[in-house]
């Protein structure tokens, strides 16, 4: 397998992990919205309510930065990072 194929394999792996986490916070937890809202969550808000106001939104912000850093590492590992002069 060529260097580029390996790079793409890893990139795809990262995509699947990222999308899995994204799925949990955007769709997964809202399957149980009614049940989860009965429980008190962060700062005293009901859990589901908190996720829609802050939790999921914040998770997405963190997820994107985490993803960007992981992807940069993968690019470096296989020597595909951009050089400054490009």
């Amino acid at each position: 397998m060529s260097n580029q194929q390996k790079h793409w394999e890893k990139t795809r792996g990262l995509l699947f992990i990222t999308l899995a986490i994204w799925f949990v916070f955007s769709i997964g937890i809202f399957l149980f919205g009614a049940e989860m809202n009965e429980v008190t969550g962060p700062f005293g808000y009901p859990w589901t309510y908190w996720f829609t106001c802050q939790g999921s939104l914040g998770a997405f912000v963190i997820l994107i930065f985490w993803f960007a850093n992981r992807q940069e590492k993968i690019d470096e590992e296989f020597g595909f990072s951009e050089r400054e002069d490009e």
Partner: protein
Amino acid sequence: MKGNFIDNLPKVYGIYTGGFIGFIIIMAIAEQMGMTAKAIGIAFVAFTVFIYALIGWLSRTAQADAYYVAGRQVPTVFNGMATAADWMSGASFVAMAGGIYFKGYGYMALLVGWTGGYVLVASLLAPYLRKFGCYTVPDFIGTRYGGNLARFSAVVVLTVASFTYVTAQINATGTIASVALDIPFQYAVYVGLISILLCSMLGGMRGVTWTQVAQYIVLIIAYLLPVFWISNKMGAGFFPHFMLADEVARIGELEQQFGFVKNAAADLKSVPKGLAGITKAHSAVNATPWAFISLALAMMMGTASLPHVMMRYFTTPSVKAARKSVGWSLFFIFLLYSSAPMLATLSKLSLIDPNLPTGIIGKTFAEVEAIDWYQNWNQANLMFISDFNGNGTLELNEFFMGGKAVVLATPEIAGLPYVISGLVAAGGMAAAMSTADGLILAIANAISHDVYYKIIDPKAETAKRLLVARVLLVIIGFAGATIAAMEIQGILGSVIWAFDFAMSGLFFPLVLGVWWKRANRQGAIAGMLGGLIAGTWYLVWVRTGGSGFLGITQLTFGIFGSAVSLVLMVVVSLMTAEPDKATQKMVDDVRVPSGKSILGKSH
């Protein structure tokens, strides 16, 4: 100042922010000295619009890559701010808190959808399209799949989606301009339009970028300052986001106490159009999982297909910067979106809690009608009360309000000085203008670059291309304003439709263009046109009394459209020949950040 403009950005916008805060303070002092509310409103809107126009003029350019992609040198964080302003429209600013106020949980699917979509943008598309080096989204489609028909199909989808969106934004600028400047809406729409064109006409993407950063700063100050101030004034907590749990619980209690009484249809007839009462629980789960998830999903996939957002990431210096920039965009959006539910909570509690001095539920009609702010907003057609049961006291089901009033009227209800209301008007104007600019530019660029230059006259010189681009900008702007002046549909409804149109036609052709090498021209064309037609058909069908299926409504028709698009694209691609070697090589090159971009610096 030494050094070039880009290096000085933090300083430039630091001074600008300081200057704006200084302006707010001057207005506050002027108010104490007797400046009228009307004059303050005019000053706020005129001052900020003047600054944007100045930035637009300073950013004028005659170069293609500056006009189309701001010279690809916008730093990560600033591009994040510009994208946030580009993204947060009049709907986000003026209507979102109102939607949450009235509909609660079911509506908050939009908060999740309009943020979660950025994960898709960052991971599936933005870095790869940046590497591609295109000027517009159809530029990517046209080069990846090849052929004028593919390019043209992408322009069609882009135009349908963005134009639906832009009429709503011009409508919003008109509404705010007409309130703040006290002129009729039909004229205010054109005042709004001219302000919008001043930002984008001379500098194209460069002008829009630097005005959007300025607009973000205005809109975020205008949104957060009242939220914090009201929260503190009510004693709800100095940092509302972490401290409103008791208030949320108290609203739940009051809802129990008052109950949601259903009004008779005959009674509701007397309520002015566009106003609504509180009929849904504030924090309880009031929608089925599918209703919530389908709306969130449609907005997320729509986010990743809207060209005016995607093209912001063409302006970063590198692929790496494009990825990070998506994160910053969402961070800046998060600041406003996480505040909207807090504003809705504060607004609702201050109106319905009889223990608070501002609460009106339980008061007599004579008392409420004597309140200054009630009279003002009743006159503006945003508040209405009617004694349906004839007992002389106001009940929860007898109080009606427009969605916009949550943002526009809450500062006044809470007793904040008028300078805050002026600030909010300037913020709403900034939000609507910045989005309208991005959208008009996306349409005009697609038509001038992809239709005129790439299809009609590939030999055109830069000067002529940019002239065509500018003429189109004006034409599209006026077309949008003309339709906006007719006031056909509400702001929020048409914004949601735009997302559905975009995802129907563009989501899979874009994503598969990067992630599926086997995707070919025939498949992409079938996917774009088939998806758009299927989605539009579903919308028309449901609007004309069709029952719909699988719980897909007129707000989520993109789910149907994009499913059709995916199936068509895969089936047609597999039935026809695979893309040639050169195209496959191109896809391989797009997938790694290093190396030259696919399209040259100026193409």
